[in-house]
């Protein structure tokens, strides 16, 4: 039994196909999806999506987004797939350091800021090579 998986960004379809098992970086912790999973909507942190089919395993480093499981279809929508070779470590570090930390009103603003910080930290982590062995994309 397999589950149909598609990973899309605003630019392209990154992955499209059948898989036995997919692990996802959920906002409340990583989780796995197998065939026949109950309907689910989850927010995704920046992290790794691993798609396992038979013996082969694809790994994608994604920015934050959403995952939806419905009728044995898993759709992952993310704003971008991180390409480690294209990250400018110095610029990212500067951006992180110069982030506006003045108080703001409203949970949404705070959430957006935390999200942005997470993304920048994640990019730095990727560049520093901590996960380069698992990241094929």
């Amino acid at each position, binding site marked *: 039994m397999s589950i149909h998986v598609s990973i*899309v960004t605003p*630019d392209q379809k990154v992955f499209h196909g059948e898989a036995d098992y997919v692990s996802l970086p959920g906002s409340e912790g990583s989780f796995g999806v197998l065939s026949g999973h109950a*309907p689910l*909507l*989850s927010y995704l942190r920046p992290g790794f999506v691993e798609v396992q089919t038979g013996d082969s395993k694809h790994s994608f480093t994604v920015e934050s987004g*959403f995952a939806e499981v419905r009728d044995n279809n898993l759709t992952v*929508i993310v704003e971008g797939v991180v390409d480690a070779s294209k990250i400018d470590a110095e610029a990212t570090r500067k951006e992180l350091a110069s982030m506006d930390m003045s108080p703001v009103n409203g949970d*949404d603003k705070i959430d957006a800021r935390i999200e942005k910080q997470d993304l920048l930290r994640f990019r730095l982590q990727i560049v520093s090579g901590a996960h380069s062995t698992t990241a094929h994309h």
Partner: protein
Amino acid sequence: MATPKEIKTRIDSVKNTRKITKTMELVATAKSKKAVDRVHASQPYADKVTEMLESLASGQLDVSHPLLRKAEKPKKVLLIAITANRGLAGPYNTNVLKALVAAYEEYKSRGIEPVLYVAGKKAVNFLRFQKIPFERSYLEFDDRVTFAQAEVIAQEAMDLFEYGKVDGVELIYTRYFNAGTQKVVNRALLPLSFSAKGKGPAAPYIIEPSPEKLISALLPRSIKIVTFQAFLDAAASEQIARRIAMKNATDSASDMIKEMTLKYNRARQAKVTQEIAEIISGVDALK
């Protein structure tokens, strides 16, 4: 009547023009294919964001979010118009600018102050000439807008809206419907409205972390993808408009060449006939 030599020069010049328009047509054809591919590639993401939003909202009766705020008496509205950096695209730029001026005048007459953000050199030149003030211009996109670039504009529009600096945001651009139809549209970007008509799954969703959090994370993404798609549509429509304009130019150049070749042949024949007549009458005179 023009001499054959004059006509010949003219034919050569039109032939050169035709070479240029033909090349531009081919370039536009290739570019339009790529641009249309990008429009299609963005569709699955856009559809999914809308679908998730709708099915989440159908379970929630009162969704409130700053991006959904509807001002009772709007005072200011942001108009974002998308034109091209280059001309020679038939009525493509003029149509967008006409719609922009119409919207601008209409808001003014209703006592709402329009603020303009424009993309493309053509809009900038036009507005300067018309002495219509604009707040911001984007010239660096050309026809390959990245999501990150569109995201910056969308974010700016959302910030203005959330802080109450504007009460509405409207996009004016050429929408790509299909290969045969592209039309200028005024699309309200903010306040965001969506119908809560999602069918929803057979069983209720497991939602993480919470429906409210998901909706407030989805809303800005929806604005961003709509903005991105507006730019993609505009780029595709621009290339298609240019292809058509250049095809027409090439065709009329061909017609001109045909006509002038006929004229040239007639003038040449007339000259030959005249010379023969002169020679014959010369021979006659010698007899």
